[in-house]
């Protein structure tokens, strides 16, 4: 039983789920772009050309075939910046999930496994975390410490672990007393063995669903923080920062905010599709 994360029947059902395929396509495409960014950008995304500012995309009136998605307010190639922005969103999403996952899963498994006083403490930590307004605290910390890429990852990681903890706790509780866990105890397995070989593999699919939800949330929050000027610092081409810098021109040239915003929306939608398909496959409702 342990180690069977995806039973064969479920895996094949997953492949027939169109939402899953769309999710895989979007996230896979974004991952490839993020990895290959330096080799596929047509121009240097940081190269400023003040003589060619706010050139519209090539398919619009007044566009220039040299710049597929036009140029920004400093004449930087929008397509190249968008490609590098994929990298920022993906890296922030993945690193945040790893940080928050480590914190949340540790707390949740400990609470669910030991119960009693330990569990009370874990539940209290979750309740406290939920009552703290995350965006506001993230903004305040970034303002005090000065924003940087690493700080955004750490702040989001330390704020978004609640759902990991909730799900890890409840699923651990459910399997704690199942026969195969008792069997492992009887066979003389150590506490560490039971946790790492019996408990974790069997809650992994549930945690995978949470991971997609948190990744989507992390990408959205990074964009919001960067939009407010306290996320990823310029001149890095975060999509949120691109929208923020283009905001002044949006009433004349709406495409300057449509392009990075649409990219953000599609990526987050793709991540959500993945999570939704995983959830359907398990037949459990973790939407809250």
């Amino acid at each position, binding site marked *: 039983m342990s180690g069977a994360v995806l039973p064969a029947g479920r895996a094949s059902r997953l492949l027939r789920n169109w939402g899953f395929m769309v999710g895989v396509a979007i996230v896979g495409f974004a991952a490839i772009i993020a990895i290959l960014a330096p080799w596929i950008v047509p121009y240097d995304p940081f190269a400023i050309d003040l003589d060619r500012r706010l050139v519209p995309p090539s398919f619009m009136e007044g566009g220039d075939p040299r710049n597929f998605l036009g140029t920004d307010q400093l004449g930087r190639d929008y397509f190249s910046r968008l490609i590098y922005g994929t990298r920022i969103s993906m890296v922030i999403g993945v690193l945040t999930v790893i940080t928050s996952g480590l914190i949340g899963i540790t707390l949740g498994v400990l609470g669910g496994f030991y119960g009693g006083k330990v569990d009370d403490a874990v539940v209290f930590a979750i309740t406290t975390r*939920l*009552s703290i307004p995350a965006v506001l605290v993230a903004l305040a*910390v970034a303002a005090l410490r000065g924003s940087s890429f690493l700080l955004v990852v750490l702040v989001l990681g330390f704020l978004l672990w609640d759902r990991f903890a909730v799900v890890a706790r409840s699923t651990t509780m459910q399997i704690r007393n199942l026969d195969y866990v008792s069997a492992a105890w009887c066979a003389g397995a150590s506490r560490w063995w039971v946790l790492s070989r019996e408990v974790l593999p069997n809650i992994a699919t549930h945690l995978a669903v949470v991971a997609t939800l948190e990744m989507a949330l992390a990408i959205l929050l990074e964009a919001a923080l960067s939009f*407010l000027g306290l996320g990823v610092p310029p001149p890095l081409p975060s999509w949120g920062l691109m929208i923020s810098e283009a905001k002044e021109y*949006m009433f004349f040239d709406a495409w300057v905010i449509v392009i990075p915003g649409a990219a*953000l929306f599609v990526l987050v939608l793709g991540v959500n599709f993945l999570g939704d398909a995983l959830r359907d496959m398990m037949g459990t409702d973790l939407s809250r």
Partner: protein
Amino acid sequence: MLRFFLRRFAVAVLVALTVLTLAFMLTRLSGDLAVSIAGPNATAEDVETVRRVYGLDRPLTVQYFDWLGNALRGDFGESYFFRDRVSNLIASRMPVTVTLGLVGLVLALVVSLPLGILAAVREGSWVDRLVGLFAMIGQAMPSFWLGLMLMVVFGLQLAWLPISGADTWEGFILPGVVLAFSAIPSLTRLTRSGMIEALASDYIRTARAKGLTRLSILVKHGFRNAAIPVVAIAAVQLGFMLGGSVVIETVFALHGVGYLAWESISKNDFPVVQAVVLVLALIYIGLTLLADLFNAVLDPRLRSA
């Protein structure tokens, strides 16, 4: 019932005290507050003056208990920038934020309840799938971007609504819609699952057997039972929405508490930031407590929890 209430209340007070402590630590542990207040061009002398005037030279424990004692009496000190009591500032900005939150919540309920019921009644059909897709789209929508797009379309191109500010009631429509989007996905899903569960129960079968009309079964028997968790979650959602209003208030230049926090963060006005974090957390704690009690009163099975 009383024991349940007291237990929940004690936990809520403990959580509130923890948040109070965290709010204090937030500003004291992330760097030297005096340096932040004095600004980038300050000399070492200026920093010393700031430290003395604001009482930052005292031991941390003294500062903490001083702040804690005052905060418990509703006194959050004086704003560095606005030259006013922090409590006055928050009180004067709160109506805008609460109005925005309520507009958002009402809009969210108006959309989610019918959609959730429709999806549940036609479970598994294309209508159900369409509602699910709509919820997914709402969940993936970046709120600040949606806000800007609505401003361009409805404010500029169609010129139906004001682009920013809250001088008239119309100013609340666009930000309310954006805020509603953050609650619609979860409220719709919850209504749907609650309705599906209610429709599958014995009392619905009995009602059908009695020959009641379809509408009367849906509304009186189905929805009334499905609504209990929805109302409770709606209260919690309102808490989340107030906490998340900082982004939307900034986008639409609505001068509520979120905007105040944003202004204060950029001006290093930390007594205000601390207080806003605290007030929003307290509102959330209060709303969750209410939701718990509401659930317990309506559903006695929950009281043992």
